[in-house]
């Protein structure tokens, strides 16, 4: 291609700016020192040991997993149903309903946190894992709707018609044709929902109580309230758990997309 050398250099530099900085958490997590000095002076596994054995960190991990799974269940169910519903609407109603369902993406999280906090205070849902999961469901819902809708739009509508013309009722068309074909979208929606919840800080911070600290909140407190280098091990864990599945899905998706085009 006729790209100028400077253009390539700038693109590579921007690419490095996007990817490299976060990687420092991995060497940091094996540091032997109590400070955040980088590069580390010596090596140890003490922060990983603390992450998995100290009560405050292991409880936080368990809390995050519980909230994440509950959010995934709720958001995937509601979102998949909604996406199927959207696909059946006329284009005008579909546009309106889609806009409404996706609106939590555009609203700043701080505003969602404020709104949810004041409402949950009255419903005594603050300081409960269930309350956090409910709030996370609202922000995870759009990702499920988008993932499932994208899948449904790529679907060949004549398959459903063929099923119907061969005598299948609407329910068995749904169960035997629509749902299996939509499944990859549902699964990727579920992964996105889990990650959205597992990584969410602001809302969990607002709704926190000493017994409902999620992992990101514990990490937040470990640099703002006290200085606890365990955050470096937690960060590495997060990078592996959060970025890993997404990047894998990206690579698989890109490969499948390419195969489809050929």
């Amino acid at each position, binding site marked *: 291609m006729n*790209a100028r050398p400077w253009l*390539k250099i700038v*693109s590579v530099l*921007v*690419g490095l700016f*996007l*990817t490299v*900085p*976060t990687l*420092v*958490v991995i060497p*940091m997590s094996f540091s032997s020192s109590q400070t*955040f*000095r*980088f590069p580390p002076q010596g090596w140890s596994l003490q922060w990983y040991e603390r992450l998995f054995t100290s009560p405050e960190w292991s409880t936080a991990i368990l809390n995050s997993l519980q909230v994440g799974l509950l959010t995934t269940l709720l958001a995937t169910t*509601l979102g998949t*149903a*909604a996406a199927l*519903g*959207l696909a*059946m609407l006329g284009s005008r109603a579909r546009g309106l309903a889609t806009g409404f*369902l*996706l609106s939590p993406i*555009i*609203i*700043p*999280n*701080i*505003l969602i*946190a*404020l*709104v*949810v906090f*004041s*409402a949950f205070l009255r419903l005594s849902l603050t300081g409960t894992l269930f309350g956090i999961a409910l709030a996370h469901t*609202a922000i995870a*819902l*759009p990702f499920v*709707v*988008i993932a499932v809708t*994208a899948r449904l*739009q790529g679907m060949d*509508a004549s398959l459903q018609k063929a099923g119907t*013309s061969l005598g299948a009722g*609407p329910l068995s068309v749904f169960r035997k044709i629509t749902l299996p074909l939509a499944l990859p979208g549902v699964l990727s929606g579920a992964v996105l929902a889990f990650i959205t919840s597992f*990584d969410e*800080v602001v809302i969990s911070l*607002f709704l926190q109580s000493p017994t409902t600290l999620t992992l*990101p909140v514990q990490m937040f407190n470990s*640099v703002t309230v006290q200085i606890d280098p365990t*955050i*470096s091990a937690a*960060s590495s864990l*997060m*990078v592996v758990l959060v970025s890993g599945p*997404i990047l894998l899905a*990206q690579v698989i*998706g*890109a490969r499948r997309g*390419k195969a489809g085009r050929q």
Partner: protein
Amino acid sequence: MPASTASPPTAASAPPAGRRPAARRRRAAALLLLLPALIALILFFVLPLLDIIIGSFTDPEPGLGNYLALFSDGYTLRVLGRTLLVALIVTLVGLLLGYPYAYMMTLASPTTRAVMVTVVLVPFWTSMMARNFAWMVLIQDGGVVQGILSLVGLSGVTLLGTATGVALSMTQVLLPFMVLPMFSVMQQIDRRLLLAGQSLGASRLSTFRKVYLPLSLPGVISGGSLVFVLALGFYVTPALLGSPQSALIAQIISVRTRDLLDFGGAGAMGVLILVVTLIALGASRRLAGTGTAVAAHAVAAGGDR
């Protein structure tokens, strides 16, 4: 695509009027499927939001008191100004970094392009806490970034605890929202127009300025407005990398809400951000078509449009 008119074999020999109930049944089913999500969103989001908006006008006492206080206490106005400034800087720097990157994406081979899309989405899909902790380590006093800066003659620049450090981290994570809308617009530009310009005697630079730049402007507008709007609401980054002296509006909202339980005052700030957000998105929609929504989808769906 719902094909409500084109499915003759449904009911063996349905008379034309017989389709009506089928269509109605279909709409009822759609509504039934949508209802749980709509109710959840209304119950846990829309109603509380309305409550906060109303509260911002009535909370201690009815009237515009909360809003007047925003503009009269001096402090809030300064924070608001700083927030707008940081958002603007992040948008401009993002534009400078993102434009060549997006342009390169249009020239690259499909494989390289797929890699570039993945790379641009990396910060978006890296854990927010891990990313900010990493920046904290890098920009601390005596850290790597300071070392690099002192190599180029800028020694003793403090980044951690300043708005500059905050803007640095925000630029990184908001770049996908800048690059993807620009890329989707640039991809549709017919490159023969550039050849035409050059064959008519224009230099490369003036072809770019007179042909390419105007054609790519819708992408610039939708990416820029999206980044600007998202930057207004950042809480975690300024809380970790900034300081109380360089607080942004979200931090003030947090203090008002959690420490002071001043929902009226916090609500007024929240409404202000929301209004700015809606105005910016509305303006960009008018200027650049529906690019913003498309971009949000692209990012959310992992960039595979």
